[in-house]
């Protein structure tokens, strides 16, 4: 197991390296001079622009800039936002908990809703319940979360007054954004659970389980669902990444602090150092979660061993 872990971490290394090159190039791929871009179109003196180049190290050769960037990263330094004059690590650190809470809450919604609907549809295969669930899933996949968020705010905040429309802190401010975020994910998970379960339901050992007199509840939960979970786990892993990027829209609509909102603000203000930091961090999360999903396969299926 530990050897496998080491291998996995080692294989993540080239990915991370490529990522740093990509993120680093971001500043230099933008048309025009990055220093001028960041300062905006306000008429500023050449002196100010030069000063900014100096501080950002933009006047040094490209490879030196890259090495400085990577060595900074290795020391946990994501750079300093020139506009806000704050360390990017600090800016991200302050809002990251809010994004993680939202993402996990959204994932929770997606899993609970998705698995329940998937099971329901599979067990009632080819009935109206199955059809209704799949129509629901289709709507869920197609509906833009931006629109859904506004509709939920309109219904539950403005009309019914049940939840506040903005801000963070407290479960009442988490429910609407988490539901919005998790909705699309639940649709994808439901479809995967359904198809995976239908496959398992046709297996011989299920017939055996039924033949030996196990109740339908036990069969579905103990035998079918557990065996159907492997492909579902993969989807959940992919979903996590999608949810993390989905927070960009949700955080803006619900005025929640978070790295998604930070990213949007940074893009609008052309604060490249912040954009780099958020992109890099999100990618690392994605890698980490996929590793965790791979490891969790062994929990779902003891036949899978890592050596």
């Amino acid at each position: 197991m530990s050897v496998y872990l080491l291998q996995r971490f080692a294989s993540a290394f080239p990915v991370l390296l490529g990522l740093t090159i990509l993120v680093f190039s971001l500043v230099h791929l933008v048309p025009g001079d990055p220093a001028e871009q960041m300062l905006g179109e306000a008429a500023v003196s050449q002196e100010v622009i030069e000063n900014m180049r100096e501080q950002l190290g933009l006047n040094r050769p490209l490879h030196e800039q890259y090495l400085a960037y990577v060595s900074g990263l290795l020391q946990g330094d994501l750079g300093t936002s020139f506009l806000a004059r704050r360390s990017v690590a600090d800016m991200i650190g302050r809002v990251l908990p809010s994004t993680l809470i939202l993402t996990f809450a959204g994932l929770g919604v997606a899993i609970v809703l998705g698995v329940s609907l998937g099971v329901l549809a599979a067990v009632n295969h080819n009935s109206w319940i199955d059809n209704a669930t799949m129509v629901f899933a289709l709507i869920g996949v197609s509906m833009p979360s931006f629109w859904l968020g506004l509709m939920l705010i309109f219904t539950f905040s403005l009309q019914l007054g049940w939840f506040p429309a903005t801000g963070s802190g407290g479960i009442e401010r988490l429910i609407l954004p988490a539901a919005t975020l998790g909705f699309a994910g639940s649709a994808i998970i439901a479809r995967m659970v359904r198809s995976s379960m239908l496959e398992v339901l046709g297996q011989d050992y299920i017939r055996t389980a039924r033949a030996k007199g196990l109740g339908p509840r036990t069969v579905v939960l103990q035998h079918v669902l557990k065996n159907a979970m492997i492909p579902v786990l993969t989807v959940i892993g992919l979903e996590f990444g999608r949810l993390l990027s989905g927070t960009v829209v949700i955080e803006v609509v619900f005025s929640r602090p978070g790295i998604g909102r930070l990213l949007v603000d940074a893009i609008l203000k052309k604060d490249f150092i912040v954009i780099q930091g958020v992109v890099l961090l999100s990618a690392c999360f994605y890698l980490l979660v996929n590793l965790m999903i791979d490891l969790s396969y062994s929990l779902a299926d003891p036949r899978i061993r890592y050596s």
Partner: protein
Amino acid sequence: MRFIGSMFAALVILSGAALAQNEPQMGGKLTVGIEYEPVTLDPHVTGQANARRMLHNIVDTLVYGDDEGGIHPWLAESWEISDDGLEYTFYLRQGVTFHDGEPFNAESVQYMWDRIMDPATASASAIAEMGPFERSEILDDYTIRAYLSEPSALWLRSMSSSAVAPVSPAAVEALGDRFGRAPVGTGPFRIVEWADNESLLVERHPDYDWAPEPFGHSGPAFLDEIEFVFIPEAQVRLGTVETGETDIIEEVPPRFVDMIDENPDFNLLRAPYNGSPLHYMINTQVAPTDEVAVRRAILHSVNTEAIVDNLYAGVVEPGNGPMTATMPGSVEGIYRDTYPFDTEAAAAILDDAGWELGSDGVRTRDGERLTVRINVLTDVPEYGELGQVLQSQLGDVGIEVVLQPLARSPWAASNNEGTDYNMVGMGLWRNDPHMLSLLWRTDGSAFTWSHYSNPEFDAIVDEAVRLTDVEQRFALYAEAQAILMEDAVSLPIYDQMNIMAANLAVEGIVFDQSAFPFYHATHLTR
């Protein structure tokens, strides 16, 4: 596109002159919904309008200027200007303290000016306010003299901008780069907490006792606290004032105004932004708009009343001219007085110039089609909508319009280059008619997108900026506006407006001339 200029801080008291009618009660917390979070609140660094909206409740300035060009004492009790206009001596108010308890004195004023001038500060807008400032000299603890390199009619008023606000030198030194998160000024409110992406909480500065005379009361603010909450989505922001999550919201989009206007539970507050209207700068260097006849025909062909009614629900006023109607020194109605909406007049001008109507409805001359290309900034949807309206209205007189959608950077680059478009929409917020030079003087500034050059106009605005007599200055600027209209370099669309919605419990909101709300005299009736 919006830029902030020097703050006049003249007051337009809305919400029914509440100050005079009700005995204001102390206490309470005001929650304000604001569109976006500023990058920094360092007054000397920021160039963002939203930083200003909050900042001028946190900092004060040396002088206070009203909308008729008058200047009032604030942190400076009085001042003298030398006969040659190069030396300004300020006699400062005593007993003023910063939020950290440090005294305000001549040293803090010198520190501020030096800090703004220092390139390491990377000042975005304060540096522009400093104009021809060269150096300062402390005469005693409460007297300081500034030396300018040339006379400037703007300089004293520039000192009323919240960008040029004294801050505690001790706090700047102690906080370093963190100062922008927690600026320490002398204003009626001081910062308690700035939660990233979420809100800024300020509380009453209890020792405050130096508001300028036009504010109506000089003592501490009535409110205990103000929380500025950042709500980027316009519809959600509007929703929060209905649910009571906020008491007042900024930047109500004009198309949502009807919803609030018809609701008796809310007040709609409107304050005009000064500067240029949202207007189209017409390029005088690129054919066919290098021809004054074509430019004049364009000005006759556009029905701004219809645009205001259809796109903006009639809540804003049609464009006044090179400057908005409320701008000091503006000639009221100059656009429509010079060029009434008259498609027949436009057609006659074009006929006389040899542009003949073709069978496809587009005019031609010697095989050239009369095509006008408009640079459209894609970041702001409004410009796309306006572009389509112009396409249809100019099409009615046989002018073909081609829209050139561009993202901000290439858009700005194309505008500066000036070789590939005929018209571009923009708006410039400024409080002094000197803005005419910024837009139309030969090589005037970063925004000379008409690429206009007229020595007669240049001479007039150059003389005006050196005059200190308001009447003489405004007379010159009136001439300048007439020249701009005669040469048809600007197509004014509408005078921009800051539209806010507040619940009925909020009274005594005061707008400065930059149309930013001032909460020093605000109080709650609940």
